[in-house]
């Protein structure tokens, strides 16, 4: 095999975008498709919750610490999953600095598909406009230096928020047609917010749509979401990182067919097994464990998990989901440090190009 030529040093943004496109990178990027905000970072940036979820300047300032303080290759300003639901009229419990805001799902706003009313100017709602403005601020401040990742919620998750988890899951069993109607009625929000964030300056968007194995079967994903997710990949003009928590390896074959750039996967799934299942058809981002490792253990434990992902060829290294707000900065900083060390220890890391077959190459990493 002819060794691939060395890749020149990349900016963080170039690195993330190349990895999302499954093109060669100078080293594996460290990304945060979901929140890495912590109480320590809030203090450092003087941008505490809940205001950092509602005021664009604070949102941007807190998000930037992921790059400036922690050394990640991306900035992600949407710390929660409530912005669109707030614009739809869901009640939000905003909490304080030490907890995430949450939708009051036990007070659902819809019961039937025909109840769904998307306000005409919902993107001008303060909680959605805040996201767009924070992205604009970050793009102005950082130019093309670092990747900016936005977030647009998928219709399955929006249905949890608007109908309540139990009523919606029962509807999905009792009346598949109604369920599809709900998803159809909400999907334009997902597309429109994704496009708006791209126009505001986002390089990619995370798309959480929690059809997790902890709640529903893989067959459900195939039945209700695969085609919708394909549609999102076609209509949103920037790379999409699908996020689903929990056990998902059984539905990765479907997810790999959506045409999305990457799948942000949870530590309940083994990296090597997951890579084998997706087989180069979609990138993987993840999957450093939050509650046990990042929150409760040491940098050495973090490093071990980073190495396990790199050994498996995972495309972008990231915490598995929004990290606990009390996570130590020390543990978070260990992620990029470990990635850099792994690459120093593996100067001829395998290059698998577009085929993900693992052939030898130069100082390049392309999965």
């Amino acid at each position: 095999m002819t060794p691939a030529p060395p890749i020149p040093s990349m900016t963080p943004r170039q690195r993330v975008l190349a990895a999302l496109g499954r093109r060669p990178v100078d080293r594996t990027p460290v990304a945060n498709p979901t929140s890495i905000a912590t109480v320590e970072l809030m203090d450092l940036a003087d941008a505490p919750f809940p205001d950092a979820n509602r005021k664009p300047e604070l949102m941007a300032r807190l998000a930037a610490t992921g790059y400036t303080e922690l050394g990640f290759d991306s900035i992600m300003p949407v710390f929660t999953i409530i912005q669109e639901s707030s614009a739809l009229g869901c009640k939000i419990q905003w909490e304080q600095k030490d907890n995430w805001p949450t939708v009051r799902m036990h007070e659902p706003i819809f019961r039937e598909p025909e109840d769904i009313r998307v306000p005409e100017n919902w993107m001008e709602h303060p909680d959605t406009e805040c996201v767009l403005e924070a992205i604009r601020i970050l793009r102005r401040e950082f130019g093309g230096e670092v990747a900016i990742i936005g977030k647009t919620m998928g219709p399955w998750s929006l249905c949890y928020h608007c109908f309540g988890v139990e009523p919606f899951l029962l509807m999905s069993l009792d009346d598949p047609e109604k369920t599809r109607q709900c998803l159809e009625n909400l999907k334009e929000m997902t597309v429109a917010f994704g496009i708006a964030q791209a126009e505001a300056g986002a390089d990619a968007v995370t798309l959480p749509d929690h059809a997790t194995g902890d709640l529903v079967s893989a067959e459900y994903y195939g039945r209700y979401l695969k085609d919708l997710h394909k549609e999102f990949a076609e209509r949103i003009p920037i790379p999409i990182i699908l996020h689903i928590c929990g056990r998902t390896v059984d539905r990765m074959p479907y997810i790999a067919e959506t045409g999305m750039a990457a799948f942000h996967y949870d530590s309940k799934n083994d990296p090597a097994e997951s890579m084998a299942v997706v087989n180069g058809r979609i990138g993987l981002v993840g999957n450093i464990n939050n509650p046990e490792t990042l929150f409760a253990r040491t940098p050495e434990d973090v490093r071990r998990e980073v190495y396990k992902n790199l050994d498996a060829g995972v495309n972008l290294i990231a915490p598995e989901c929004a990290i606990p707000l009390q996570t130590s900065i020390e543990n978070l900083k260990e992620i990029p440090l470990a990635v850099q060390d792994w690459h120093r220890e593996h100067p001829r890391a395998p290059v698998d190009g577009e085929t993900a077959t693992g052939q030898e190459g130069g100082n390049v990493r392309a999965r």
Partner: protein
Amino acid sequence: MSELGDIASDFIRQEIEEYIARPDERERITNTFRRASERMQAIAAALIDGDHPTVDRLTREALEAGVGALEVMDFGLIAGMSIVGVKFRENFIYVPEVLACARAMKAGMAHISPILSASGIEPLGKVIMGTVKGDLHDIGKNLCIMMLRGSGFEVIDLGVDTSPDKFIAAVEQHNASIVGMSALLTTTMPNMGKTIEAFIDADLRDQVKIMVGGAPVTQDFADDMGADGYGKDAVACVTLAKQLLGVAA
């Protein structure tokens, strides 16, 4: 096989054959259904199928025909739930299907509960359940409650966002022997420990057993918080509750 052959319902036999693999569980469930009448097996089958109108009707008809409320509960509803629990634990079914079974269970219990209350039959134990302060997620807790009730426990559901004071007040009011706490968020998990500390401060810690669960919760975390037990899912929650009270599983 010959033991399974003693079960009249084809549906129940097939369910056991297809889904119940552990020898101890298979023996226990098979023995239960061998002792169950055809009428009870039909109730269990409808429950496993998530068919709440049929469970409602068959339960009412059984009681009207003179079948005892306890027999309907033990050999119809709880026996059916024992298969549902195993299928859920082993990922043969998921939450929507379990919710449908719970709805069917509820339809049957609506006829049974008033009779049991009036006759003074004691539950296995009283359990206070709630999602901890700051956490609004309740589906895991609700599944546990459904399985606990389906196993003969009386459960007082405090809902979501439950403060330590509310847990304590409920234990005092209901003289409960177990507290179950749930959390989905890593930010709210520490509130389990705070609630346990509040029980210590209130001098009530020795009077209750405390169990915890939720997606991010682990056995290590439960130990660190000073809980008496951790259950990884709704089936484990029932087993744990029985262990904590010294009741045979």
